[in-house]
Structure formats: C-alpha cells, structure tokens
C-alpha cells in the first residue's frame, strides 16, 4: 500500500523535483567516491593482464560505459512502455532525459574500445557485429534526440519516440549476443555468463566497483536532466498560457 502511494506521489512532477533535490547531493558524493575508488583500484592496484599487459586498464572505463549504454536504452524502453501503456506523466520526461546521457556513455564505449583495439587488434575499427551494433545504438540515441527536437508538441513527440524506442530495442539483444552469434574480433562475455566470470578477482572487483560508481553517476545525471525537462515543459505551458491571454491581461 505504502509503495503504491510512493509511486503515485512520484507521478507528480513537483514532488519528483522535491525528492530529487533531497537525493542528488548524497547521490553525487557516493557516486564520485565509489567511482574514484574503482578507478584507483583499476589503475594502480589491479595487476597487468598476462596477455594484454597494461592496456587492460582501459577495461575499467570501457566495460562500465558499454554496460551503461545498454542500461540507458533499457530504461528508455521501460519508459516508452510507461508512455504508451500507462501514460505515466514522467515516463516520456525520463526517456527524453536519458537519451543524451546514454548517447554520451555509448560514445565513451566506442572511443575507449577503439583506443583499446588499436594496440591489441592492430586496428582502430572493424565492421564486425559487436562494434557495428553499438555504433547503431549510438546513432539511434542521436536519431531519437533529433526526433524529440523536431516535434514541438512534447506529448505527440513522446508517443512517436516511444514507438521508435520499442522498435529499436531489438538492437539490445543483438549487441549482447553478437559475440556468440557471429565471428567477431571482440571477445565474448567474461563477467555475466553461464558458469561464472572468467576474470580474476583482482580485476573483477575493481571492475564491478567502477561499474557501480559509473552507474550512480549515470543515475544522478538522469535525475538532473529529468528536473530540467520538467521545467522546460512548464515553461512551454506558461508561454502558451501567456500567448492565449489578451494583451495587457498578464
């Protein structure tokens, strides 16, 4: 009963902003601390890999960024369902706020992957299934941002974008399983796989701590961007009110 009331309360944008204002300072402190510890362990404590040497240290940013690129799209797909099925007032706000942040983390995954690929594979880029499907994810984020900006009415834009998000979500399992379904330069899953992780604990724990810190940074940015989006919609509504009033009535 209480949790149901909490969800109803959060559907109110004003209450959401009040809650976000309370949570964000603590969230930022914890996020920066956890990410700092994770990256410190990854850069200075974890041993070099027996095959890749020191370049394995790129893993501590590349892998969390790649996970978050898919996590962000997964959140957008859930928000799209919220828009189309439940018409939750914050669902489209969340999807629109996530898009640029998801795009930025996807860009980090692409750039760091390229910088890891050159010394290890001998090439900056290869049109294989994993790399290409992540590039498609990045282009989908950009396309959705362009779509939201192209349609003035946020409700109409939200419904159109929600359909496109759900259609595009077919790319997420393709990214995840591309290394199993096709021959790729990219290595297979080594953390979340049947039979357990193949990474030694000395590298796995810094990786998981970095991923947790990056996830908290991602969530903090999404909450801030959602607040901005709520304010943007209020401003639009007020401008419409102002435009509909007779001159001098304001």
């Amino acid at each position, binding site marked *: 009963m209480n949790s149901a009331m909490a969800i109803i309360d959060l559907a109110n944008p004003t209450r959401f902003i009040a809650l976000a204002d309370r949570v964000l300072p603590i969230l930022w402190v914890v996020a920066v601390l956890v990410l700092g510890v994770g990256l410190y362990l990854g850069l200075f404590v974890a041993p070099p890999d027996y095959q890749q040497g020191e370049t394995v240290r790129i893993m501590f940013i*590349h892998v969390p960024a790649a996970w978050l690129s898919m996590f962000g799209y997964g959140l957008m797909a859930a928000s799209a369902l919220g828009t189309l099925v439940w018409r939750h007032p914050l669902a489209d706000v969340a999807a629109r706020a996530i898009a640029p942040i998801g795009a*930025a983390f996807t860009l980090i995954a692409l*750039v760091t992957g390229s910088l890891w690929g050159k010394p290890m594979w001998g090439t900056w880029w290869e049109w294989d299934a994993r790399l290409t499907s992540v590039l498609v994810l990045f282009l989908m984020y950009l396309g959705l941002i362009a779509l939201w900006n192209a349609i003035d009415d946020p409700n109409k834009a939200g419904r159109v974008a929600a359909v496109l998000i759900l259609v595009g979500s077919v790319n997420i399992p393709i990214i995840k399983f591309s290394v199993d379904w096709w021959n790729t330069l990219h290595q297979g899953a080594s953390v979340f796989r049947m039979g357990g992780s193949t990474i030694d604990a000395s590298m796995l724990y810094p990786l998981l701590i970095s991923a947790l810190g990056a996830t908290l940074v991602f969530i903090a940015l999404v909450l*801030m961007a959602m607040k901005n989006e709520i304010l943007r919609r209020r401003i639009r509504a*007020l401008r419409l009110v102002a435009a509909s009033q007779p001159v001098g009535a304001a």
Partner: protein
Amino acid sequence: MLGDHAGFILAAYGLSALIVVALVVWVVLDGRTQRRRLADLEARGIRRRSRRIESGAGEGRG
C-alpha cells in the same frame, strides 16, 4: 608505469573524463537556463494554475 601503450590508456581515461565533464556542465547550465526562464515568466505574473491559487489565497483573494 603504464608500459608501451601508456598513450592509449591515458587517452582513453582523458577523453572519457572530458565527455563526462562536458555532460555535467551541459546538464547544470541547462538547469540554470530553465530556472531563469521560469523565474522571468513568473516575474511577469504568468504562473501555473496551482501557483496562482496559492498566491491568490495568500493575498486573501481565495
């Protein structure tokens, strides 16, 4: 300390930090812009219905 490929490792960390910092700056500046625009509208007396009712009640007109 980072071996023969230090340039690649440092570039990966540096570019990632740059992208995250740019994202944080953009979100913060966007928030400031929206709050300023909202304050400007409210200063011109254009308010949401709920705020009009609140201020009306406060002024004894409710």
